[in-house]
């Protein structure tokens, strides 16, 4: 199994190289001449040439790529023009906010979609089955930013149940001591339940928004896979052995049905990370999505590159984690002909 996991880790290398090449090419495709941009409007052609040389833009593309990768290896993602700080630092300070939101979004999404899919599959043709279909189709059709706004209007403006959509904590609470950067985890670690609840309240709406958008693939896959497993031979064996319905559906059918669902999580993460940017904007969430949007508006390119790269590497890592999880839960991986 360790060997398999090792193999899978190695197979991520081409993806990482691909990601590096693409982000590099995106850097070089920037509109206008970066040298002229850095030199400012009053610069002489001589000064621009000087800067071009200092930026290494006079070298060939492959050479530039090597330099780019070397810089990355040193953790140098350039500086943000807007804040003047290194991009890496900015990303590092904002990443936990995005990560916390994305992961909670996933948890909520799985928490709703999987039971929904199972219920739909165990009662095909029932009203639960039909509503599962409607909910999932409607879910993918709702733009995440729109769902977020609707939820804010109803739950904050009309009902007043949700806190103001203004970041990770309301003004009455201060951030817990920075351990992991995830407020929920940190506040629990230091035993500060009040902050935990405050952070959770802020998180719920945006996480639910993300969940609505990503429900569909999980619920559909759960339903289809559950239906298939329930009609398979080994379920018949389990029923013929008189196992209780709970045992048949959960220990036998459900575990098998989850295998294909785990593989769809890759696509779900793609949805989640993308929608995350939009949801962060709607909820003024201080994550890397908001950071990237601010940079986009200010035409501040280094942060955007850093953002794309971070998201892509995170996505590669998450996919890797999914595959490792799959290897752990399915004993057959690697033995099939």
């Amino acid at each position, binding site marked *: 199994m360790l060997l398999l996991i090792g193999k899978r880790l190695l197979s991520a290398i081409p993806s990482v190289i691909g990601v590096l090449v693409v982000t590099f090419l995106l850097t070089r495709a920037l509109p206008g001449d970066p040298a002229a941009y850095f030199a400012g409007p009053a610069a002489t052609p001589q000064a621009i040439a000087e800067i071009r040389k200092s930026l290494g833009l006079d070298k060939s593309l492959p050479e530039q790529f090597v330099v780019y990768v070397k810089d990355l290896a040193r953790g140098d993602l350039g500086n943000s023009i807007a804040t003047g700080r290194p991009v890496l630092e900015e990303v590092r300070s904002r990443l936990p906010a995005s990560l916390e939101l994305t992961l909670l979004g996933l948890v909520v999404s799985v928490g709703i979609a999987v039971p929904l899919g199972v219920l739909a599959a165990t009662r095909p043709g029932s009203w639960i089955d039909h509503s599962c279909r409607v909910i999932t189709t409607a879910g993918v059709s709702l733009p995440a930013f729109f769902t977020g706004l609707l939820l804010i209007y109803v739950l904050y*403006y009309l009902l007043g149940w949700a806190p103001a959509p203004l970041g990770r904590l309301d003004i009455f609470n201060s951030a817990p001591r920075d351990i992991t950067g995830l407020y929920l985890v940190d506040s629990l670690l230091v035993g500060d339940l009040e902050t935990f609840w405050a952070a959770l309240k802020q998180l719920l709406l945006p996480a639910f928004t993300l969940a609505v958008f990503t429900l569909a693939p999980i619920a559909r896959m759960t339903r289809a896979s559950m239906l298939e497993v329930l009609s398979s031979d080994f379920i018949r064996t389990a029923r013929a052995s008189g196992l209780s319905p709970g045992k048949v559906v959960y220990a036998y059918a459900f575990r098998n049905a989850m295998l294909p669902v785990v593989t769809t999580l890759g696509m779900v993460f793609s949805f989640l990370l993308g929608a995350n940017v939009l949801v962060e904007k709607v909820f003024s969430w201080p994550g890397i999505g908001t950071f990237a949007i601010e940079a986009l508006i200010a035409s501040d390119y280094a942060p955007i590159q850093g953002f794309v790269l971070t998201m892509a590497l995170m996505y590669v890592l998450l996919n890797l984690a999914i595959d490792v999880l799959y290897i752990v839960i399915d004993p057959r991986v690697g033995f099939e002909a």
Partner: protein
Amino acid sequence: MSETWKHIRYVLTENPVTLFAFGLFGLLLICALFGPWLAPHDPLFTDAARALKPPSAQHWFGTDALGRDIFSRVLVATRLDLGIAFSAVILTFGIGAIAGIAAGYFGGWTDRVVGRIADTIMAFPLFVLAMGIVAALGNTVGNIVIATAIINMPLYARVARAEANIRRNAGFVEAARLSGNSEGRILFMHILPNILPILMVQCSLTMGYAILNAAGLSFIGLGIAPPTPEWGILVAEGAQYIISGEWWVALFPGLALMLAVFCFNLLGDGLRDMVDPRRRT
């Protein structure tokens, strides 16, 4: 052929949801084609005196912060939104289908190159890649189309590749080869028409995603610049009024967006039932 029509009629009558989707599609098409003439007001006309008025008989969807008629703006935006998504889908279809068919048909290094490119695109969260592409290529509508097309490419390439691969040694292809047709001719005249229906389903399914993607990009301020009416921008403009209770500014463009995406998703599901021979009963 009459068999096919029968089947289509069967699917439509059997599945009222698909029929509904076709109806909605017709409506969208009318809005896209004739929107500017149908709009009761000039979508760009501002009037500070009637700013942020809720829906009324005169302004069905209310007015925005500059007193513009939201109904007219939503209506007129249809053309731009569908236009972007449609161009992107056509573009993806062109590149993705051809690359995929070539990969499936020729195999070997063609397959490897196409596969590697598709994998590299898929290594990114797609919306994030689209953001990066638009940021790099420049903030224009054309680049939104390109970015949307690129991120959808792998889907088409995969479907086309799988289908072409199944058919590369099919009887009718062998026959065409034996009668001296060139490989290119076989590809375009024999394989492409055969897998067209399956790709059309894919088109309809990605149309919804393309609309969402383009609207998402403009929502965060990429591509289309105000005051041009576009659903994503309209929602973004309304976003700040949500917390002060002026719900109509964001709601109506958001609903339009949702309906359009919903329509294409339903349509895609319906078309799949029509094309997928396994589902024929």
